[in-house]
């Protein structure tokens, strides 16, 4: 009887999840989903994942203080990685929509954007997992540098697609360089 109840509850949750996915897909197709790109302070992010910073803090602080500070830094890093992962998901959608463009260069740029966005999303998930493990053992090294590199690569792809789809803005960027 207990087994039956467990399986029935599992089936009910499964059904709710499947219907939820169907509804959210419907909203996505009809353009009702309002998720947006969230800005990230890349310099602060870079600072957080810099091994030299870790080393500096390790030398300057007592081991108890270092673990406390390191946990704080890991939590902050996790927040950055979550945002980077969410941004990657939004950009993956933008890239997929641009895949239907007529221009071959735009399609190629969109494909690269999708690939890099998915790669970043995957790496963000692994990095978050490692960070949650590292929270228990803060003396272990930082693990999020691949996410930062992926984020920078993704920025390049987004900029390229932006340049192809909306030439005015990248010119402004180029001018500021």
């Amino acid at each position: 009887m207990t087994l039956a109840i467990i399986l029935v509850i599992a089936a009910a949750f499964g059904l709710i999840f499947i219907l939820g996915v169907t509804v959210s897909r419907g909203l996505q197709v009809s353009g009702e989903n309002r998720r947006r790109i969230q800005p990230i302070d890349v310099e602060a992010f870079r600072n957080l994942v810099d091994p030299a910073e870790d080393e500096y803090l390790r030398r300057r602080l007592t081991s108890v203080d270092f673990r406390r500070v390191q946990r704080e830094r890991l939590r902050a890093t996790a927040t950055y990685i979550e945002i980077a992962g969410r941004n990657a998901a939004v950009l993956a959608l933008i890239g997929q929509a641009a895949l239907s463009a007529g221009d071959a260069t735009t399609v190629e740029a969109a494909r690269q954007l999708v690939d890099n966005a998915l790669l970043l999303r995957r790496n963000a998930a692994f990095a978050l997992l490692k960070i949650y493990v590292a929270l228990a053992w803060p003396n272990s090294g930082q693990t999020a540098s691949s996410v930062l590199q992926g984020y920078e690569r993704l920025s390049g792809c987004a900029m390229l697609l932006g340049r192809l789809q909306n030439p005015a803005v990248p010119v402004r960027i180029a001018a500021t360089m």
Partner: protein
Amino acid sequence: MLQAHSLLWDYLWVGPNALLLVLAWLLWQRRIWRQNSAFLAFAIVSAVGDIAVFLADISPSVSAVNFWRVDWAYLFAESILKFIVIGEVFSQLNRPYPSVSKLGRVVVSGVGAFLVLLATLVAAFSRGDSSVRLISGAHLLEQIVFTVELGLILVIFLFGAYFNLSWDRRSFGLLLGFGISSCGHLAGWAISANAAPSPHGRVLLDFLDMATHHVCVLIWFYYLLIPKSGGATRPPKPPSAGAGSDESHKEHLEVWNRELERLIHQ
């Protein structure tokens, strides 16, 4: 009305299978079966098999043991084809994305193996609903199949949702139908195999199973035959697409570019 072999009972047993055969014929006629060839095979085998089980049930010349043998054969063939269809759908979802396709394969195979072990373990602890092994075995096999099926479908939906992968309309419809079917059937078979329902309760569970199957066949009709309004199988519009998707892309990319601009200034 809610009695075994009432008109409704017979309709719910035969009707969805007849519709499934019509669907298979339409897929063949419209030449849209190539993309979902495994589903075409499933539709034919499943419908013919279930009708064969129905005929074995009403035919006085078929003994009880032979009825259950027919049921086993049908269950076995249907289950194998079902998993092939799920594999085909997953590969269609995964193939266009090389950066995550390997991860997807690893996740789905790993979870599949785990689910088979888990479902077998759960079946080993099930009490069974009949002293005749042929009957209780069939019910436990159904329970194992639907547990694994539901688990795999949930993992595929989760994988697609996490990475925001764009679904082909037909593949999504197929998986949605199998998902709803596995939820309904798992609940029904779990009660049947573990909770020793009364004979009338068992009949009601059969009605639930058959009605679920009917709903799923209608879902497949809708997703496989009715084209999406406004075009074929395009990727979904990006989020926050308001007045026009192009404007929305530009808006997003402008936000991104502003971020890059700020980075350059630092």
